[in-house]
């Protein structure tokens, strides 16, 4: 199975990844979440062999069996949609016929077949990311690495993109996708949350929620102890296992769970 084990990556004297293990099973979408600087892109780059591991192992298929969409989408701005496809197909050594039939299928599914003659730079953000996805999928890779394909993309295009990503997984690919949208991550089979180069939580979304120590509760006024945050007009609070819980205990969503896990970790290391 594709993944990394006990992987440490040091970049310019700082530890970008600190001994993490992540598995990317085939036929599923694994969502990699975390803020800027958490190590998401470094993990993808390590799996692509573009940064060296200081320690640990990286298991991936041969480079020709990996598809990669960088956060900038990988679309060539001065080429048309059709030229982008032909150029990338040639780079993968695909025959003209194979490129044509595969491109027809992918561009039609992505809803951008009518835009073949448009330049990459003239595409909307959502269309550009969908084309970037098609380029990464062109050679039917076994491992698909997508770096923030949905960031800055509106909800409608994001749903369309998600349908493409799940279809790729249903087709048997192992998909690792970074995202900053936790509602999107919540749809994935597995969520891996990175923070400061470490795995904060991993598992299916329900497992991540179950892993929160203590209790998350909701109240109408702030208990005021630094473990409270706002959600609309209500106050959500994380309380460690032995503490007194203010307000009403709730099952947290993924967003609240990661806030609580971060608070718990901060208190542990203090």
């Amino acid at each position, binding site marked *: 199975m594709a993944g990394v084990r006990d992987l440490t990556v040091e970049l310019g004297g700082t530890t970008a990844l600190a001994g993490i293990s992540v598995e990317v099973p085939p036929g599923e979408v694994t969502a990699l979440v*975390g*803020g*800027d*600087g*958490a190590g998401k892109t470094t993990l993808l780059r390590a799996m692509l062999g573009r940064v060296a591991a200081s320690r640990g192992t990286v298991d991936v298929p041969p480079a020709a069996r990996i598809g990669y969409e960088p956060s900038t989408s990988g679309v060539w701005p001065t080429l048309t949609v059709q030229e982008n496809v032909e150029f990338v197909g040639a780079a993968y050594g695909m025959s003209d016929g194979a490129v044509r039939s595969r491109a027809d299928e992918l561009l039609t599914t992505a809803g951008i077949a009518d835009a073949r003659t448009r330049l990459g730079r003239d595409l*909307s*953000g*959502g269309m550009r990311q969908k084309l970037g996805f098609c380029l990464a999928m062109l050679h039917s890779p076994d491992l698909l690495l997508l770096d923030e394909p949905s*960031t*800055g*993309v*509106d*909800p*409608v*295009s*994001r*749903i369309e993109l*998600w*349908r493409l990503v*799940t*279809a790729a997984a*249903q087709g048997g690919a192992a998909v690792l996708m970074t995202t*900053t*949208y*936790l*509602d999107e991550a*919540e*749809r*994935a*089979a597995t969520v891996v949350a990175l*923070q400061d180069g470490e795995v904060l939580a991993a598992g*299916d*979304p329900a497992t991540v929620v179950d892993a929160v120590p203590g209790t998350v509760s909701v109240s109408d006024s702030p208990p005021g102890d630094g473990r409270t*945050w*706002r*959600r*609309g*007009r209500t106050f959500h609070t994380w309380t460690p296992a032995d503490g007194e819980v203010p307000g009403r205990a709730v099952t947290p*969503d993924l*967003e609240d769970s*990661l*806030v609580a896990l*971060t*608070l718990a970790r901060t208190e542990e290391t203090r």
Partner: protein
Amino acid sequence: MTTLVAADVVTKQFGAFTAVTDVSLSVAPGEIVGLLGSNGAGKTTLLRMLLGLEAATSGHVEVFGEAPADADRHALGYVPQGLGLSQALSVRQNVEFVAATFSARSVPDLPPALAAVADEPVGRIGLGRQRQLAFHCALLHSPRLLVLDEPTSGVDPLARARLWDTIHAQADAGTGVLVTTHYMQEAEQCDRLVIMSRGRAVARGTVEDITASTRTAVVHAEDWAAAFAALDDAGLPVVLTGRTSRAAGTEPDVVRRVLEEAAVPAEVTEQPATLEETMVLIEQEARAGGHR
């Protein structure tokens, strides 16, 4: 004054292209209003008119009771998506620069996370802290209206929670807040929402108001992959969530029939639609020509 900013049936044309059509929107003191919509829906053009950077073709815009160009800019705090910081200057120098620009009388202390890097160039402090700094700068001059464009993109959940604590604290103190976002959980932080599509305001109200009339068919099946494939092949707007298929705005009976024909045993229930699902349906309706 009851509203800080008000757009009344505003239209903006660029040549033959109408970017905004008959949109009304207001923000009162203490209120957090979310402006949602697809890329190209007209959100940025509307914001630019409110900020006095574009003139409306027709309709009326008022900021603090005056035409936007005459309005008191000192009372406006703006955090653009690009943050608007000087990358080569240190954290402290950025704050001093903004304080001098606005002739701010008293400059609040830097929060601890920023104080720790006060002399670092902004380009080196990481995006989470840059975002915190942009907020700090926008709040230096105690604005009455805060305009935020995708305020928490790229930050981790705790940092996002802390930024929203700051936004809520400002609103509690009477500041009006106008936020654009693509992040639905962030939209749910707002008191009310205005959803734009193709230049028009197509839905408005609280999250509950907007999602009230929309339901989603939810499919649990042992062979979840087969259930998803059957519904997808049938052309239904189905989205895979973990191992559950969800078809927003689709009658459960329609879903049951497709699954029966495909001989996939499944349990189909109906649930309230999420805000995201509702937005997708609203956008599809708008594209089809009708709008709410």
